[in-house]
């Protein structure tokens, strides 16, 4: 256990130093990403204004809050891309990490977690700038804040698990882009990334409950902005933990099978 803590701290520290060398590149990346929520925000604010100041419980200020927090959650959702797995296998990166006496997925989790520390730091001025323009209506309680803190890290872990599972499909076939595209489309609609889920038809909301997407995206945002009752806050954290455990179990099972295949057909 102590060895793992040591590994995580060392690895995260490295990621922080590494990424801190490129604040401009990181900012460009984040600014490119910000166009998407700004568009949603503007469209929905216009709709709300036209409908007399509110739509589906959201005022323009609430939309602003939703989509500004969205940018942080989206950043927390960035993990090793499933498209990268083919490269990783072909370039022999995977072979090299298999030679280490530690499960290679720890590398991913630790490295991106370190990167997130940089991302969160860089996000703060960006969020302040966006707030000046869009005037969010945001009044979280202390409890909301605490739950949010855990929720974004849990969201990060959920998405690490699901995208690792998706990426591992590459062990069996390299024609994966169709599958990935479908996955991302489903995620866009069912996560709360496109619009807050409460604007979706009833049946979509019910459907979304059973997928990991909303627990990795919509839930953390709503936890901070939505005046959620304590019970719902806790249910959300519970669902997140459940998905992490389930995801980790699935990853380690699939990993075993995948590596068996990998070492049978060539590294």
């Amino acid at each position, binding site marked *: 256990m102590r060895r793992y803590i*040591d*590994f995580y701290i060392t690895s995260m520290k*490295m990621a922080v130093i590494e990424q801190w060398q490129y604040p401009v590149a990181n900012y460009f990346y984040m600014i490119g990403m910000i166009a998407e929520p700004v568009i949603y925000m503007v469209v929905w604010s216009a709709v709300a204004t036209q409908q007399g100041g509110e739509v589906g419980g959201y005022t323009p200020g609430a939309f602003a809050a939703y989509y500004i927090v969205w940018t942080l959650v989206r950043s927390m959702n960035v993990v090793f891309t499933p498209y990268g797995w083919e490269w990783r296998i072909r370039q022999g990166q995977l*072979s090299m990490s*298999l*030679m*280490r*006496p530690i499960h290679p997925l720890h590398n991913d989790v630790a490295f991106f977690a370190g990167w997130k520390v940089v991302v969160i730091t860089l996000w703060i001025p960006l969020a302040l700038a966006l707030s000046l323009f869009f005037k969010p209506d945001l009044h979280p309680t202390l409890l909301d804040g605490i739950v949010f803190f855990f929720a974004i890290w849990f969201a990060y872990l959920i998405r690490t698990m699901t995208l690792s599972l998706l990426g591992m499909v590459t062990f069996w076939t390299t024609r994966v882009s169709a599958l990935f595209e479908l996955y991302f489309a489903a995620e866009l609609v069912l996560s709360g990334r496109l619009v807050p889920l409460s604007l979706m038809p009833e049946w979509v909301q019910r459907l979304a409950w059973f997928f990991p997407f909303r627990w990795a995206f919509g839930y953390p945002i709503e936890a901070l902005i939505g005046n959620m009752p304590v019970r719902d806050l806790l249910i959300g954290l519970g669902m997140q933990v459940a998905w992490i455990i389930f995801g980790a179990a699935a990853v380690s099972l699939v990993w075993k099978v995948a590596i068996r295949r990998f*070492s049978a057909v060539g590294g």
Partner: protein
Amino acid sequence: MTSVISISNLAKHYQVPEREAGLAAAAKGLFKRTYKTVKAVDGISFEIQPGEVVGFLGPNGAGKTTTLKMLSGLLHPTEGELSVLGYQPAKRNHDYLRRITLVMGNRNQLSWDLPALDSFDLQRAIYGIPMDEFKRTRDEFIELLDLKDLVQKPVRNLSLGERMKMEIVGALLHKPKILFLDEPTLGLDVTMQKRIRSFIAEYNKRYDATVLLTSHYMADVEALCKRVIVIHHGQLLFDGNLSSLKEKFSAFKTISFDIDNPTQDFSQFGDVIAMDGLHVTLRVPKEKTSAVTTQLLSQLAVDDLTVESTPIEDVIESVFSVKKEAME
């Protein structure tokens, strides 16, 4: 002494889809694929004793890398027994991984944007090396490879050779007992090759480590390895001393000399390999060497006559061609 690496009848076969040219064949292939078996390694056996440095030779595609990958646990053997330090590599037991290392000349492990020191620290955390021991080993290696001024620089700013030295330090920080080195000097200049070679020799001596090394550069093998194992088409061709390999397979010697009159025909003495102005190089069967030398000296006015054994590269080449003919 008990051997640290023991391999018997090791084989690795792959099923690869067979592709025929042409559209019709390709269309047929959509429904029913035919496979053929490629025998990358086909029944090799050898034992390696602790502390040995063994050169592992063979042309491209002979099965060297496949064997190294089986030894390091990345590939499962199709057949045969494989035991390293008493472990079955394919299980990739963490205790086993802590005792070995695999260095591939064309792969890198170090973080590109950070000084190597940071990557070394990560290695420490991964292998759980106690801090004081880690520092001692690290400084010792840095000293040996003369890297003091470079460890603070981001790896991306280092030359290829400097980067390779760093890679090797990183790969040995946990002081593995067994080193699998796949082309560790690939693409490096001669001085850098020498440096790495002498470091490997030193490491082997200090830590009594066992080394299995493949290299395209025979100088690596000649400098480091007393023993060589040669494989070809996945099969073992030779296992023994480097000198006896030369003895066994080098059937020829080269004789070179200067001459006054270059119009003469020398083919009666042996194969003319080169004739450069007044300088002539001949290749003659080993047993005829002395006879030909005497003839040349007595019949013609030759100067500066030298007799050399065939370079090791040519020996290896003839090993492969001889055996190939024998097998076909």
